[in-house]
């Protein structure tokens, strides 16, 4: 699994993240890579593009290509159910009962949606280890940025909490030693949970920051608004210690003009994709589109 590569297609709403991710996945599948395309976007456009229904279980749509649609709400619900079950097992009836009303609103708390995305990401990469590449069709910018930022942010908190917890445990150890005259080694469940979380988020952060394991492709349209947002995404990625791999310039029509002075163009590879004359719906139209001479997806395919 260490050779598995992850491709993320991010960008402003409506620029063509779903279309470009399906084209990328199909292109890689045609060049003998076993590919899984996963839609993490709640809009779930992959069903419309391939003209078929998808579920969370991957469905074969072409040779070497499977498509799945992650249900983030289901991931969140399952996660909260797990916490609730653990609470009921560990807590007294009264405390667990009092907490129930809090838990019912937790699913709407900030941060939970991106954690659901992270759980889905982890699920597909752990379960489908036989594929060479997983292409993720990401939600619009705000949520995607939060998703990439979550491991770093969580690690800041976890390091601090672990330090505090270790101080508490050290003091408790001294108290036991003085009072009982001997040292009793107690395994602290909270420390263990914090360490597990730290391990999980360190793994996630390392994947996101490793260009040989993960490629973040930013989809833009040749217009000013799209470029402006893309520049902001590029900047926030930099702050997170991540680097965009390619800029996919989608819907490039004849006579399209764009800001050639933009730092985006000087810092990254650009793959221009021409505007299609026909709707890109269904496998046959995607195949015809990919066979055009001016379709440039090459810089994206770096695996193997």
């Amino acid at each position, binding site marked *: 699994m260490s050779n598995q590569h992850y491709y993320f297609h991010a960008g402003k709403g409506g620029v063509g993240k779903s279309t470009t991710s399906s084209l990328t996945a199909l292109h890689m599948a045609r060049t003998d890579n076993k590919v899984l395309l996963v839609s993490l976007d709640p809009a779930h456009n992959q069903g419309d593009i391939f003209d078929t229904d998808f579920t969370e279980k991957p469905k074969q749509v072409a040779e070497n290509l499977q498509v799945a649609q992650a249900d983030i709400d289901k991931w969140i619900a399952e*996660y*909260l159910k797990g*916490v609730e079950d*653990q*609470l009921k*097992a*560990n*807590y*007294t009836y009264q*405390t667990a009962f009092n*907490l129930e009303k*809090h838990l019912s609103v*937790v699913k709407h*708390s*900030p*941060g*939970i949606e991106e*954690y659901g995305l992270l759980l889905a990401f982890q699920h597909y990469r752990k379960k489908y280890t036989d594929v060479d590449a997983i292409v993720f069709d990401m939600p619009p910018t705000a949520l995607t940025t939060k998703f990439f930022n*979550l491991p770093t*942010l*969580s690690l800041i*908190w*976890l390091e*601090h*909490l672990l330090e*505090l*917890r270790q*101080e*508490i445990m050290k*003091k*408790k150890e*001294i*108290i036991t030693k*003085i*009072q009982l005259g001997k040292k009793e080694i107690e395994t602290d*469940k*909270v420390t263990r*949970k*914090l360490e597990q*979380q730290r391990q999980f988020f360190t793994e996630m952060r390392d994947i996101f920051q490793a260009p040989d394991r993960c490629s973040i492709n930013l989809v833009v349209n040749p217009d000013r608004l799209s470029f402006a947002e893309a520049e902001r995404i590029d900047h926030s990625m930099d702050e997170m210690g991540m680097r965009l791999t390619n800029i996919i310039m989608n819907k490039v029509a004849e006579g399209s003009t764009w800001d050639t002075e933009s730092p985006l163009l000087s810092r990254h590879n650009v793959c221009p994709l021409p505007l299609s004359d026909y709707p890109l719906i269904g496998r046959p139209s995607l195949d015809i589109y990919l066979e055009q001479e001016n379709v440039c997806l090459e810089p994206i395919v770096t695996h193997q």
Partner: protein
Amino acid sequence: MKEHCKTVLRKIRNGYRFVDEMHRVKATERLEWETRELENIFALLTLGAFVGMQAPPMHISLELLPDMEKELVYMTNRVSIANDPLAELFSMFDAL
């Protein structure tokens, strides 16, 4: 005579134990208080959302929540104790 000696020895031993225990408790009193306070800070940091305080990302709190019943009960108790004097103070203002 032998019995008498044994009783005296037992009394001395018990006395020593009592003094030893007392000193041990005394010696750790402050440390225990410090630990309790640290635990309270930890609970506030991790489970603060449940009493209206700024908290870490929700998934960290949720992950720790099942193993922190003692801390949660302790914290909510402290919150209710801390709230009472304020409530009384404001009630007093109402009366004026």
